[in-house]
């Protein structure tokens, strides 16, 4: 069915109801706006036989990272059957549902959590591929659900730390046993392979993070702030971590650009356009019924931001050769 190709599709639905049904106590504005299929004619590689039956649902294309994932996907699959933007306008959910059901896509690519939850709600038999979702492990993964995670492997991050700062040998991590014990074990082994000693202090909900960090700072060259939900449970906890590290002149390496203003020295995150391209490759593999397909793939590209002022303040030895790998330099 190519009924919706090149058509303008308009519709909305109520996200709050879906989220509530999923048992999450979030109060997202429940506005959906469904848009378009403006399909470009340009492509380097075209897959005319396989792209007709793919639908993209974007949580909100006005959000930069969602837009980048969308563009990345379309650089590989330029002519999907339809593209829906769940933006910020109110309308009825049923109309959108109807459009998706009539389109009957074989695969739906969902960008962001809103799109994912919406697709899960309105489709049963379509294969769903997600990206741009933080901590995908909290999702219910059905048999026909696939995705690209938003978190880089710890070994990738550690390799980049070694590349950028060859003399930074001892890195400290606060982590919760409840969520990240296995992760920490693996990261320790990975670190050992490249000559980094990873010093971890386990914490729980009752731990005084400030004292744990104080102990850690005495013994390390840098702090690796990960997305551990216990460590990041409160906004002021994050502020305090950066204040303590700053006072001790110890750099913070972390995973999100949101921490740049807080004083992070180095941010290594997944490269969003690459996750979109990976999702498209996964789509093509699924459409061609390839065997041995991973359910959730790890991001293959990294995005690096470095604060050179902090590098200088922290007296870090930066490998200048590695600057060709840095995406954003902050002075």
């Amino acid at each position, binding site marked *: 069915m190519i009924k919706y190709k090149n058509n303008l599709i308009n519709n909305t639905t109520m996200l709050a109801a879906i989220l509530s049904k999923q048992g999450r106590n979030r109060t997202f504005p429940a506005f959906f706006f469904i848009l378009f299929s403006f399909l470009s004619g340009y492509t380097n590689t075209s897959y005319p036989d396989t792209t007709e039956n793919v639908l993209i649902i974007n949580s909100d294309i006005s959000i930069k990272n969602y837009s980048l994932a969308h563009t990345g996907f379309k650089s590989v699959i330029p002519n999907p059957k339809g593209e829906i933007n769940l933006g910020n306008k109110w309308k009825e959910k049923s109309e959108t549902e109807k459009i998706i059901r009539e389109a009957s896509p074989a695969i739906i690519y969902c960008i962001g959590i809103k799109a994912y939850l919406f697709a899960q709600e309105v489709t049963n038999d379509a294969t769903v591929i997600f990206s741009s979702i933080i901590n995908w492990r909290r999702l219910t993964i059905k048999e026909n659900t696939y995705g690209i995670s938003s978190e880089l492997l710890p*070994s990738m991050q550690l390799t980049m730390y070694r590349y950028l700062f060859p003399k930074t040998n001892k890195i400290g991590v606060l982590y919760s046993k409840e969520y990240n014990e296995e992760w920490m074990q693996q990261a320790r082994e990975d670190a050992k392979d490249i000559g980094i000693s990873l010093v971890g202090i386990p914490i729980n909900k009752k731990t005084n993070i400030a004292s744990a960090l104080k102990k850690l700072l005495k013994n390390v060259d840098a702090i690796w702030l990960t997305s551990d939900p216990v460590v990041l449970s409160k906004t002021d906890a994050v502020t305090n971590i950066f204040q303590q590290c700053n006072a001790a002149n110890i750099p913070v390496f972390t995973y999100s650009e949101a921490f740049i203003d807080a004083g992070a020295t180095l941010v290594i995150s997944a490269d969003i356009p690459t996750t979109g391209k990976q999702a498209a490759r996964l789509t*093509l593999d699924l459409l061609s019924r390839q065997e041995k397909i991973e359910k959730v793939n790890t991001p293959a590209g990294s995005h690096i931001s470095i604060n050179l002022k902090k590098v200088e303040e922290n007296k870090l030895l930066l490998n*200048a050769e590695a600057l060709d790998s840095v*995406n954003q330099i902050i002075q």
Partner: protein
Amino acid sequence: MWFPAFLCLFLFTNTLAPCAEYKYTIYFYNPETNINNFASLKKEFDLYLSRFGGYQFQPFSEREIFEKLISEKKDGIFIISSWHYKQLRENISIEPILVAVSKNKSTCRRIFSTSRIINDISMLSGMNVASASSEDYTKNVLIQMFGENKGAVASSIKILSVPKEIDALMSVGFGMADAAVTTDSSLAKLSAINSKLHDTLKQLLISNETLLPIVAVPKPQDENHKKLAKIIKDMETAVEGKNKLSMLGFDGWKILNASEKEYLEKQ
């Protein structure tokens, strides 16, 4: 008393005026690298170039736009890949003058690395190959590596375009891609950083040696082209200039010798 003060102000503002306008531009496009840090590149290069007057740096991500510009613009010089120059030279009147240098070498080889056991090239069919170069360029390298009679294998390869060569290599090592096409220097870097990961990669095919990116000027050259070329050539002598070059992946530039010029003029 007011008149001399006004005259001083007039002379001062007129002295500054030429610096406020951009004179010539360095236009940059390189399909051999998937450089996407354009904002930082422009900011850093513009800052460096500003000390010499009103020069600026303009990177491009779209080949078509760059090619249109290179055929029209005479107000600057071009940093382009040697592969791209060979494709453009018959239609566009530009002259190569410098070639990039990295670790005292002006050439590199591309290497096809995989963690799989491969006994025959046909086993590479349909593989996901990570590359930090453009899809066009990577396919071209693959065809050259595989040999003309294996063109079907090369076209069946699925290219996963990643931002950096180190990402491409890690993608193979950590299982996100089946193989990678990178330069020999990136493999050497990985070996120094993570030898265990490097050792999991088998270097299956090696390309011919190619020249690193070049600096080319429009014909005929004028004084501003010469001045700007000298500024680029001298970047490696200042720490700040060297750091900016590092962002492009080079240590410096050298004047093209006869054999390098011959290589560029060959088909």
